């Protein structure tokens, strides 16, 4: 609570106390009027002043003006009839209570969302003459060595120079499992150093580091307004004048009708009172505050789960997603090759792998690396001689005096060695021959991520009707992966440009009005990401290109996050809809009740403040995403 709020709270309490006291003071006539003027001015003087400025600046239709008209009207009515001034003061009092609560609640949620996203480090440690010195991270040049003690946040992206430790990246990725780092590993700002002292050579400036970028993104996200937000702004602009005109009509038409057509007494004061009550309900505050607050809370909640949504509009589109298109490599699969089996081998499997790894030891091709990895120990290059790369076919070498050839079928054909058939449905086959005789084939495949199947199932549960996979791979491999994952449709053998065309086709083929989301890893699929209704980049942490191109960024490479993101967006949009329907509904109901005389100014102000309070509390619910 700041000073302004404290003063306001004191004014509210003092007014309430005064009203209770005045209730027991038996004065009548002008004295009573003057006595009640004290609490009225105490609670309402700033509203009166604002209304006055509004009139002077020709901004008549603001809520201050309306409150002043309503309460002054009630005072005038009280002067002429029964002398009950309570109503005017109470209306002003409740209006201020509502305002106060709104400011307080919004301030609170602003802070709690801020804390949730509090990954911005405040300082960096430099080692100066053996002692640590805290400096502003903004002033650290790239290439400086900074020291991060256990328990501190890494302020700037860099590479570990010295020390080992485990890092908690939960604030960035939502993943709570710590990650081990050793010299040579790159580290990202925003992670918390858990165990050991680290010396890190920075590779970027503070402003370009991951933590700063993410915060900028999230903070700017709520500036991109969703369609429901625009709807509310437009609604608020017409709502107030319409209700004011209705108030005027209520004040004039029924009495005139009674007088002229029905020959009854006009009851001017009754209808004037109802008209004034209309004015009390005319402030669109509940709506105007709760909708952006819901989106802000939703975006904040999503970011705490490791999902960055770059705008309220994208959160809205994400919630309407009925078709999810995946890129295969790097999204559903690991994006790296591994050895999945050995077939037709004439020598022991371990020996085959070892010989092949040694023959391939000079190559950095992903396939060679996967064989080296499967072999375990790093190859002893002393044992290898005469390595010859056969471009596009494979490699030949002499290992421990034996001639080894490893490559595709064409290589062995050239060497005149007959090959057994390949089992391409699993992956790529690497044929190996030793001393001119066939020794076996090593099957290498890009394995699907262990969570991919579950991720696809989770999407279906979240209400996605169709899942599609786009890939540049051959049809057999694509079908095999899709079948394993439970993907509905597959398009294989696509070039990057074909993928854009496919996305366009899928978008125009959508008949249910839903949106099409594309999930990729941000590497060479940026055009597809931007063409889809929602582009989702996965595993994008530390990858600027992906963060730039996508609308939604999944911080780690777990595809299950997408289902979670969709559920978060659905919950948030659900809350937005509840708030819209609830606020407008209650207001319309109140207007009707007031028009027929079933409700007075008291109920009107209660309804107004009450709806606002409930809508704000409901909006904050969007922040809680843990159990989705």
């Amino acid at each position, binding site marked *: 609570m700041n000073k302004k709020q404290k003063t306001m709270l004191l004014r509210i309490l003092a007014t309430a106390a005064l009203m209770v006291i005045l209730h027991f003071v038996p004065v009548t006539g002008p004295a009573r009027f003057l006595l009640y003027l004290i609490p009225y001015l105490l609670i309402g003087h700033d509203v009166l002043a604002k209304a006055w400025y509004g009139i002077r600046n020709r901004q008549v239709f603001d809520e201050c003006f309306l409150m002043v008209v309503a309460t002054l009207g009630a005072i005038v009515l009280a002067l002429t009839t029964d002398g009950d001034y309570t109503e005017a003061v109470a209306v002003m009092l409740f209006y201020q209570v509502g305002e106060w609560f709104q400011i307080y609640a919004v301030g609170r949620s602003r802070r709690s969302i801020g804390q949730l996203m509090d990954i911005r480090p405040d300082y960096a440690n430099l080692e100066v003459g053996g002692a640590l010195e805290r400096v502003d991270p903004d002033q650290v040049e790239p290439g400086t060595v900074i020291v991060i003690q256990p328990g501190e946040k890494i302020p700037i992206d860099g590479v570990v120079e010295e020390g080992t430790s485990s890092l908690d990246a939960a604030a960035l990725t939502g993943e709570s499992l710590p990650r081990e780092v050793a010299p040579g590993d790159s580290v990202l700002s925003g992670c918390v150093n858990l165990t050991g002292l680290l010396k890190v050579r920075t590779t970027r400036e503070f402003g370009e580091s991951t933590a700063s970028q993410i915060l900028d993104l999230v903070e700017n996200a709520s500036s991109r307004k969703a369609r429901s937000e625009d709807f509310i702004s437009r609604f608020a602009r017409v709502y107030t004048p319409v209700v004011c005109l209705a108030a005027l009509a209520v004040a004039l038409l029924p009495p005139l009708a009674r007088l002229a057509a029905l020959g009854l007494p006009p009851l001017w004061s009754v209808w004037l009172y109802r008209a004034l009550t209309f004015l009390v309900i005319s402030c669109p505050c509940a709506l105007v505050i709760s909708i*952006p607050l819901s989106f802000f809370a939703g975006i904040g909640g999503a970011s705490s789960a490791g999902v960055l949504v770059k705008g309220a509009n994208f959160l809205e589109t994400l919630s309407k997603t009925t078709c999810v298109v995946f890129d295969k490599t790097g999204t559903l699969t690991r994006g790296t090759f591994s050895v999945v089996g050995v077939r037709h081998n004439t020598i022991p499997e371990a020996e085959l792998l070892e010989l092949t790894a040694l023959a391939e030891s000079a190559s950095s091709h992903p396939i060679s690396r996967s064989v080296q990895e499967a072999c375990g120990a790093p190859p002893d290059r002393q044992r290898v001689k005469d390595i010859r790369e056969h471009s596009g076919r494979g490699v030949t070498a002499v290992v421990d005096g034996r001639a080894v050839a490893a490559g595709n079928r064409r290589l062995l054909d050239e060497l005149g060695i007959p090959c057994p058939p390949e089992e391409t449905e699993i992956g790529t086959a690497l044929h190996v021959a030793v001393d001119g005789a066939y020794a076996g084939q090593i099957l290498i495949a890009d394995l699907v991520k262990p969570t991919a199947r579950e991720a696809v199932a989770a999407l279906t549960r979240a209400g996605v009707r169709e899942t599609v996979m786009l890939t540049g791979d051959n049809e057999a491999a694509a079908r095999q992966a899709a079948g394993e994952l439970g993907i509905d449709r597959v398009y294989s053998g696509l070039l990057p440009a074909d993928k854009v065309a496919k996305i366009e086709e899928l978008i125009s083929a959508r008949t249910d009005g839903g949106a099409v989301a594309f999930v990729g890893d941000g590497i060479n699929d940026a055009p597809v990401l931007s063409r889809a209704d929602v582009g989702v980049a996965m595993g994008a942490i530390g990858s600027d290109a992906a963060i730039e191109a996508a609308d939604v960024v999944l911080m780690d490479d777990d595809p299950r996050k997408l289902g979670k993101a969709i559920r978060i967006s659905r919950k948030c949009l659900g809350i937005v809809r509840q708030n819209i329907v609830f606020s407008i509904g209650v207001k319309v109901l109140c207007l009707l009740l007031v028009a027929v005389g079933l409700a007075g100014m008291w109920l009107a102000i209660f309804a107004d403040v009450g709806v606002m309070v409930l809508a704000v509390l409901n909006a904050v619910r969007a922040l809680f995403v843990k159990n989705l």
Partner: protein
Amino acid sequence: MKKTYKIDVDCANCANKMETAANGTQGVKNAVVNFMTLKMNVEFDEGAEPKAVMEEVLKNCKKVERDCEIFF
């Protein structure tokens, strides 16, 4: 040119009004007020002097909402 300013305003509707007022100011190409983060992103017209424009923006905002502040 685009710049971001910190603002202070109490209610969401007032923030909307500030946005309208800022957009109606000469030299402002587009202004977005973010009530949740209390920030105003202003895109200036080509060749406009941000400081002078912002003074006008503040004046116009004060007209619609007396209790607002823009820090520039």
